[in-house]
């Protein structure tokens, strides 16, 4: 047992409290925003440092499509990376100490609960159509929120800055307009 001066007891208790709350927040489904953002930035750079390949998601989706079509894109590391993302989601879901996703209105939030059709057929069609816009848009733009925003903007690429500004502006306008029309 290390003896410490009387006046330090308060400080040590405060430090232990901070440490305990940090550790308990790491076991929750959400980590502090800046911490997890910094970790994503470090991870994306580590990939460039070790492999010289920047982050990429939507190109891998085009490669999946290529598996079903003749003359489509050849699969490369991007497909392996996408498989990794699914496994990362599995790992995160198993270790967050929360019950599994039930698809309740509370989980979707007020906006998406009001926006997406109620019927199972209607909602499936909605998601499929939305996904189609995402995939088509990402390929025409040459990247998505991963390749253009996280990787491209960090490299100060003009095309990525432009694409990212449009992604966010259009998404914000679409959502705000829809929320206004739906009254949510």
């Amino acid at each position, binding site marked *: 047992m290390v003896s410490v001066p009387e006046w330090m007891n308060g400080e040590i208790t405060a430090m232990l409290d901070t440490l305990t709350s940090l550790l308990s927040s790491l076991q929750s*489904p*959400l*980590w502090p*925003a800046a911490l997890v*953002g*910094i*970790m*994503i*930035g470090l991870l*994306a*750079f580590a990939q460039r440092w*070790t492999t*010289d390949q920047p982050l990429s*998601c*939507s190109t*891998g*989706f085009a490669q*999946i*499509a*290529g598996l079903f079509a003749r003359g489509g894109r050849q699969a490369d*590391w991007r497909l*392996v990376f996408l498989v*990794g*993302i*699914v496994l*990362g*989601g599995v*790992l*995160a*879901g198993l270790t967050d100490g929360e019950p599994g996703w039930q*698809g309740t209105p509370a*989980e*979707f*939030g007020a*906006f998406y609960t009001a926006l997406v059709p109620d019927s199972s057929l209607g909602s499936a069609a*909605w*998601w*499929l159509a*939305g*996904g189609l*816009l*995402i*995939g*088509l*848009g990402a*390929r*025409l*733009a040459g*990247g*998505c*929120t991963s*390749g253009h925003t996280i990787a491209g903007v*960090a490299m100060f690429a003009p*095309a990525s800055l*432009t*694409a990212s500004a449009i992604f966010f*502006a*259009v*998404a914000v306008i*679409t959502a705000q307009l829809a929320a206004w029309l739906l009254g949510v």
Partner: protein
Amino acid sequence: MTGYRNNLLFLLFGIGFGFLLSRAGATSPDLISGLLLFDDLRLLWVIASAVAVGALLSALAWRFGWRARNTGKPISIRHKPFKRGLIVGAVLFGIGWAVTGVCPGTALAMLGEGKWFAAWVGAGIVLGAGLGSALNRRLTGSSDGG
């Protein structure tokens, strides 16, 4: 680097990315709507800090000529090209992102977490990406590029 080791490395990077997307809350449709409706800007801080760290390291790597481990050459700074369909594509992407609360990376992490609706979005993304690649080939008359 052998193909096997290379693939293992990319698998690990993918696992890390998917895990962090989940812990960020980027796989929660509720938090995506919070970002787009300015109700909860948590995800804005995630994106901003990720981009800030990336930009800082990118600038340092460029300034000091840091070398990539696999090539032994300076880490490349690759600027994606201005595609002919960039503006239209970015608009379509923005709409799709807003109406589903999902983007290509998070669709896969959601699938891993057991958010099954993401499978529909993911199937749509595959269809759309295939269509987009075919369109890009028409627009440029050559490869799909980036």
